């Protein structure tokens, strides 16, 4: 029997601090769904999703009720569709996206990730067709998310792909101008993309995974923020050092991870599929109190973006991993603090107040997961500049052996300081200015590759 202090602390964590499991994502291999024609392949894909994910939502609800811990998002990640559709044209890929969308709606999941390709070391004709299909596919569907891996520490960065994708981002936004360019929020460009990430928009069921897996994303930053506030209030008479606060984050991360693992393994058991990983990422939501930005402020900078912000994110990110690693048998995915501007009200406020800029966000992404995420920029920013922003972020990931990503929304018709709202979990934000836009075209026109980095002399 646990002691009453442990019981009461746990009750507090669940009730007041809104402990939940942020995402249960079923990874489904579609490798056996390829048929002679697009239509037959779509049928096979839908049948497979129904077969394995048909009960996913119901089982998540059941386990969540039993344990009294909400499972916020139920999702599906599939084998990168470029592998399934190779040989089809862009129109064929759009049909596959529609089939994925229909299947997702029918089984009741929130999103499906995996309209994806890996072009880190070069592009196949199939990859090229998939990339061409991304704007119509995402604008013609509700739940499908796309991602392209353009670089890796092993292979370097594919600048030809990045040159294409700057335009893809522009097209996505332009074709969804009526909803603030929202389609761009469902597309993310990666370097070192993991194949077991349960979070959208970058979830895929990579090659080298089991046929079907359950991956879970742990609870959001709110639990960590409340634990830190409580620690600071309780120990106000003592001189708390940052190491003490790091320790508090670590302990809380242990608890949060444990809950995620327990629920995820139970869901996998009931569905009779294998359990994959717990992703330790702290994913904010636009809700007040569930923000990584708030943690940055709690840890001592008055405005986000002020000097010290990057160091705080580094401390947070590392402490979460240390707590989570011991708590879980298998940690994977992105596993780091997210700083998605629109989805985090404190970060969005900082952008609106002009204290947080793209450049500081970029610095912060070098010490945390996952990159320049959900940042609304002026619709007038040219494709080459977007490509160059992507290249900068990819370079951080490639050189530092980590995952980085870019999800920018060039909001059509809006300029820096204007406001955009996407609603729901996608949040809202002021449009962030892009300094020196239009000055990078010659760099992008070179194309080719940035060679893989040296693996010694690491400084």
């Amino acid at each position: 029997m646990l002691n009453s202090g442990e019981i009461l602390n746990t009750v507090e964590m669940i009730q007041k601090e809104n402990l939940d499991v942020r995402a249960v994502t079923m990874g489904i291999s579609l490798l056996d769904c390829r048929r002679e024609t697009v239509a037959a392949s779509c049928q096979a894909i839908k049948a497979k999703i129904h077969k394995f994910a048909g009960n996913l939502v119901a089982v998540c609800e059941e386990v969540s009720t039993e344990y009294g811990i909400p499972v916020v998002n139920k999702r599906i990640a599939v084998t990168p569709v470029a592998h399934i559709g190779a040989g089809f044209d862009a129109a064929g890929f759009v049909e596959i996206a529609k089939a994925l969308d229909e299947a997702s709606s029918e089984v009741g999941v929130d999103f499906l990730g995996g309209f994806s390709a890996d072009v880190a070391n070069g592009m196949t004709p199939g990859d090229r067709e998939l990339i061409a299909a991304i704007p119509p596919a995402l604008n013609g569907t509700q739940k499908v998310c796309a991602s392209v891996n353009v670089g890796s520490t092993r292979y370097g960065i594919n600048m030809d792909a990045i040159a294409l994708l700057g335009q893809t981002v522009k097209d996505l936004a332009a074709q969804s101008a009526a909803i603030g360019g929202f389609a761009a929020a469902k597309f993310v460009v990666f370097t070192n993309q993991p194949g077991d990430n349960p979070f959208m928009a970058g979830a895929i069921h990579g090659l080298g995974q089991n046929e079907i897996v359950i991956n879970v994303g742990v609870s959001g930053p709110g639990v960590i923020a409340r634990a830190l506030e409580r620690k600071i209030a309780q120990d106000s008479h003592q001189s708390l050092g940052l190491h003490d606060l790091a320790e508090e984050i670590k302990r809380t991360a242990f608890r949060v991870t444990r809950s995620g693992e327990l629920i995820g393994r139970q869901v996998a058991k009931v569905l009779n599929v294998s359990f994959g990983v717990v992703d330790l990422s702290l994913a904010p939501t636009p809700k007040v109190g569930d923000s990584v930005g708030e943690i940055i402020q709690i840890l001592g900078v008055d405005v986000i973006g002020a000097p010290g912000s990057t160091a705080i994110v580094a401390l947070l990110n590392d402490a979460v991993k240390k707590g989570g690693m011991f708590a879980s048998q298998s940690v994977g995915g992105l596993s780091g603090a997210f700083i998605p501007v629109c989805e985090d009200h404190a970060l969005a406020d900082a952008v609106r107040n002009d204290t947080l800029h793209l450049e500081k966000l970029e610095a912060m992404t070098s010490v945390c997961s996952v990159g320049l995420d959900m940042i609304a920029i002026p619709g007038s920013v040219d494709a080459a500049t977007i490509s160059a922003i992507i290249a900068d972020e990819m370079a951080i990931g490639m050189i530092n052996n980590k995952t980085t990503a870019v999800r920018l929304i060039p909001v059509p018709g809006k300029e820096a300081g204007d406001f955009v709202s996407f609603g729901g979990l996608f949040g809202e934000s002021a449009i962030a200015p892009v300094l020196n836009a239009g000055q990078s075209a010659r760099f992008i026109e070179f194309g080719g590759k940035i060679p893989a980095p040296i693996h010694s002399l690491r400084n």
Partner: protein
Amino acid sequence: MVQSPRHYVISVMSRDHVGIIHEVSKVLQNLNGNIADVRQSVLCGYFTMILLASFPASVTRRDIERKLAEADAHSESVLEATVCEADQATMTLAAPRPENIYVLTASGVDRVGIVAVVSGFCEKHRINILDLSTAISNGDYVMILLVNLNQHVSINAVRTDLQCFAHETGLKVVLQHYDIFKAVNEINLPLR
């Protein structure tokens, strides 16, 4: 033919002082009693213990009571002891299944009848209380109950009724699976 041993449940209460457990266990030892299980607790300076022990068939309940009374006579403070023969059927009752064990906490301003009200709710829903303790937290009186939920009762129905109960009584009540508490506080993950 050797007769099988007899099992007794013995409870002892006394003002706490050094040596109570030795005083009691010495009595049992002298009667060739073998202690199988013990729970012991001290509350506000009062000691209480309940134990299960087996004795040779020749030892009667009266024998045990008499010897405990002798120990009481020599003890620093009064030892109030009760002895009863354990019912075999009760002793072999299956332990509750881990998936049915929940923690119920109820908190509110301390007042007369709070325990009766909460335990009344449990009785009405055929919820067996396995362990009960109380604490004061942030000025509130908190009851912490480890309960065994009847597996034929739907957890959803209990939660719904619990919400009404909380509303009627002004208590804050939380029902949460015990595995969650174990998962976040213990080294081992409680996998099924």
